[in-house]
C-alpha cells in the first residue's frame, strides 16, 4: 500500500495509486447475472481524466463543491476522483432521500456541480424545490435513454475533455468532502472533512484490516456513507485492491456475489447482519437431525479453537459449507452504523466468520474504535484505533460518562454552523453525545445516548439502548425502550420509568403468552433496570438511512398518544 504519511491529499494519493497498480483490477460492476464492467486502475484513469478535463473546462475551480447522488457503481468513484483531481470538494449525498431533501442539501452545500443517474434526475427535475439550488451550474446525468428529456442536464458519458486535465494540489488542512450525517435526530448537519481526516483514518484502519492487490471488497452500504467511502473506495484503492458493485441488491444476487467474486471483506449494517443470521439459522434448523448434530459438534470444536483468537484457516476447513456459501475467501464482515447485538456478533464468530464491529461517527471520520479480534469480544465495540485519544467525561460511580475523542480524524466543523461546531468540538475534543466506559482491558463499552437516559429513584443511571439487549429476539416486528419522561416530558427527576414500545407483527396481538414472555425477560434484569409498561405502536419505526431508529421522531409520534391510556401494564 501507499505510505499515506507522505501525502497531502486524497487526490494525490489516488493519483499515485492509479499508476502504481495500473494493471490490477480496481472495479467490477455486476448487474444480476451480467458483469457490466471490469476496470483496471489504468482503465479507471482513462475514464476519469477526460471527465476532470471537461469539469475544468466548464469552469470548475479548486474548492468548488460537486455533489454526487448515485447508487453504488463505477461511475460514482470515477466522478469522485475527477472532482478530487480538480481540487474540488466532494459532497456525497444519500440517493434514498426525497428529491425535496436532496435539493435542500444541494443548496445548503452550495454545490456548483451535480453528478447523478437518470432515474434519480427524473425525480429531481420534476421537484419544485429545484429553484433552491441557485449555485448549481453543471448537471451530469448517467445512463440516460437516447431520447430522454434531460431538462438542461448533460450526459455524463459525453462530458469529456480532449486534453489532459491539470492536477490541482491540495493541503492536508483543506476541505475534501462535506458529508451530511443522517444522525438519529434533528436536521442533517454538513460535516466538513479534511484531506488529513481521510489520510489518517485510512492509515489507522488499514493497520488492523489491511487490503492488498487481489482482495475484493463488496460495496453494499451506500458510498455516500462514511464507512463505504473509506473501506469501499479510498482504502482498497490506495492498496491496489478491487471493489465489487452490484446494480441490484436483491438478496439472491448479493448471496451469489460472495462466491462468484471471492469476496474478502463486506460492510453491513446490523439489521442486514441480523437478517443474514436469521436466514442461516433457518437453514441450519431445516437440516436433518443427524446432520444438525454433526454441524453443532463442529461449531463447538471451532468455538474451542477460536476462543483466544480467530483461526480462519481452521474454521474454513471445519465449517466448509458455511464458508463456501460466503465464497471461501471472506476474512471479516465489517459492521457499523448502529449498535450490534452481542448475540449476533457471537453467532458469526462461532461459525468462524469474524465480525469487525466498531464504533464511530461521521464527525470523527468513520471509526473511533474497532474490535481487533485479539481476542474477540462481542460485548464491546473494541479498542481505540491508533492515533485516537478517547476519554470518558464526568464518569459516574460506574465509570460511565460521555465519550469524547481527539484525533487527526475529527472534522473541522459543520458547514455554516459555528455555534454548533463550538458546542461539539470543545478544546479540540469531539463530544460524541454517546455514553460509554472502558473496561480494564481497554475495550470501550457503550451504554446509550446521553439524552436518552433516566435516573432511577435508587440513583442509578439507566440507558435504554443497554436494556434493549436484554429483550433480544423478542417475537415482535420491532421494539425499543424509552424513558417515559423522554416521550412525555415531565419536570421531575424522580419517578422516571422505562417503557417497552412494541410494533407487533401483522395480525399479532398482545397476548397473555407474549406478556408472560416479556415479564420473564424483564424479571431477569436488576430491579432498577426493569421496564414498567408497554406502549403499542402500529407503524414502522422511523429510521435513518443507516437504519438506526430515529428516536426523537418516534418519541414525538408516541407523544401524540395520551400517556395514561397509552401505557399498558406489563
Amino acid at each position, binding site marked *: 500500500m501507499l505510505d499515506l504519511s507522505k501525502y497531502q491529499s486524497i487526490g494525490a494519493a489516488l493519483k499515485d495509486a492509479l499508476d502504481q497498480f495500473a494493471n490490477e483490477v480496481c472495479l467490477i460492476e455486476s448487474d444480476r447475472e451480467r458483469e457490466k464492467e471490469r476496470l483496471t486502475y489504468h482503465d479507471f484513469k482513462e475514464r476519469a481524466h477526460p471527465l476532470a478535463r471537461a469539469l475544468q473546462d466548464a469552469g470548475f475551480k479548486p474548492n468548488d463543491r460537486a455533489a454526487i447522488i448515485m*447508487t453504488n457503481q463505477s461511475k460514482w468513484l470515477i466522478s469522485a476522483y475527477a472532482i478530487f483531481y480538480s481540487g474540488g470538494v466532494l459532497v456525497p449525498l444519500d440517493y434514498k432521500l426525497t428529491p425535496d431533501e436532496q435539493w435542500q442539501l444541494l443548496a445548503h452545500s452550495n454545490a456548483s456541480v451535480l453528478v447523478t443517474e437518470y432515474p434519480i434526475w427524473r425525480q429531481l427535475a420534476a421537484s419544485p424545490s429545484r429553484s433552491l439550488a441557485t449555485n448549481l451550474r453543471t448537471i451530469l446525468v448517467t445512463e440516460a435513454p437516447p431520447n430522454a428529456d434531460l431538462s438542461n442536464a448533460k450526459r455524463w458519458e459525453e462530458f469529456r475533455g480532449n486534453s489532459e486535465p491539470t492536477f490541482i494540489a491540495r493541503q492536508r488542512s483543506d476541505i475534501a468532502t462535506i458529508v451530511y450525517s443522517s444522525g438519529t435526530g434533528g436536521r442533517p448537519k454538513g460535516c466538513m472533512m479534511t484531506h488529513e481526516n481521510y489520510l489518517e483514518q485510512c492509515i489507522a484502519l488499514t493497520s488492523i484490516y489491511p487490503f492488498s492487490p487481489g482482495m475484493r471488497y463488496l460495496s453494499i452500504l451506500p458510498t455516500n456513507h462514511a464507512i463505504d467511502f473509506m473501506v469501499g473506495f479510498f482504502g482498497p484503492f490506495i492498496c491496489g485492491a478491487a471493489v465489487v458493485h452490484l446494480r441490484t441488491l436483491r438478496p439472491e444476487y448479493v448471496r451469489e456475489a460472495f462466491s462468484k467474486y471471492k469476496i474478502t471483506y463486506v460492510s453491513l449494517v446490523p439489521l442486514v447482519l441480523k437478517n443474514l443470521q436469521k436466514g442461516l439459522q433457518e437453514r441450519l434448523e431445516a437440516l436433518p437431525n443427524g446432520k444438525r448434530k454433526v454441524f453443532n459438534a463442529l461449531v463447538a470444536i471451532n468455538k474451542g479453537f477460536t476462543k483466544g483468537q480467530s483461526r480462519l484457516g481452521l474454521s474454513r476447513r471445519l465449517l466448509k459449507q458455511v464458508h463456501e456459501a460466503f465464497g471461501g475467501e471472506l476474512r471479516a464482515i465489517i459492521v457499523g452504523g448502529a449498535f450490534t447485538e452481542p448475540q449476533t456478533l457471537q453467532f458469526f464468530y462461532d461459525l468462524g466468520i469474524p465480525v469487525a464491529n466498531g464504533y464511530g461517527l461521521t464527525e470523527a471520520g468513520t471509526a473511533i474504535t474497532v474490535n481487533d479480534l485479539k481476542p474477540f469480544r462481542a460485548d464491546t465495540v473494541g479498542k481505540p484505533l491508533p492515533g485516537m485519544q478517547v476519554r470518558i467525561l464526568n464518569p459516574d460511580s460506574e465509570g460511565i460518562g460521555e465519550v469524547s475523542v481527539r484525533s487527526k480524524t475529527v472534522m473541522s466543523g459543520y458547514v455554516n454552523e459555528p455555534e454548533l461546531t463550538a458546542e461539539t468540538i470543545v478544546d479540540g475534543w469531539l463530544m460524541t453525545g454517546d455514553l460509554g466506559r472502558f473496561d480494564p482491558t481497554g475495550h470501550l463499552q457503550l451504554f446509550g445516548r446521553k439524552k436518552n437516559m433516566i435516573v432511577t429513584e435508587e440513583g442509578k443511571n439507566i440507558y435504554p439502548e443497554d436494556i434493549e439487549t436484554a429483550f433480544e429476539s423478542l417475537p415482535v*416486528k420491532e421494539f425499543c425502550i424509552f424513558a417515559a419522561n423522554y416521550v412525555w416530558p415531565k419536570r421531575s427527576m424522580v419517578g422516571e420509568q422505562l417503557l417497552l414500545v412494541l410494533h407487533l407483527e*401483522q395480525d399479532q396481538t398482545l397476548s397473555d403468552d407474549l406478556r408472560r414472555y416479556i415479564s420473564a425477560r424483564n424479571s431477569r434484569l436488576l430491579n432498577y433496570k426493569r421496564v414498567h409498561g408497554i406502549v403499542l405502536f402500529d407503524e*414502522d419505526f422511523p429510521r435513518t438511512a443507516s437504519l438506526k431508529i430515529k428516536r426523537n421522531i418516534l418519541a414525538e409520534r408516541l407523544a401524540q398518544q395520551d400517556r395514561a391510556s397509552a401505557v399498558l401494564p406489563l
Partner: protein
Amino acid sequence: MRTIDQTTQEVLTLASKHFQVPADSLAPDDDFFKKLGIDSLQALELLSRLENHFGIELPDYEVQGVSDFRTLASRIQSRL
C-alpha cells in the same frame, strides 16, 4: 397483453401467496410494507417473485420509494 387491472390483481395474488395472507385482505392502494408487515429486504424478495412471474426485469431504482400495490403494478405494466 394484460390490462393494468389484471396486472394489479396478479400482483395482489402473488403477494398474498408469498406472504401467506388471505388474498381478499389485500387491496390495490394498500401500503405493502404495512399491510404485509414486511421490511425492505422482504420487499426485494417479493420483487424477484414478481419478475419471475411476469418475465421482466425491474431495476431497483424503478421501485425506489414505491410502497403501494397499484404503483408497483403500473411499474410492471410499463415493462410488459
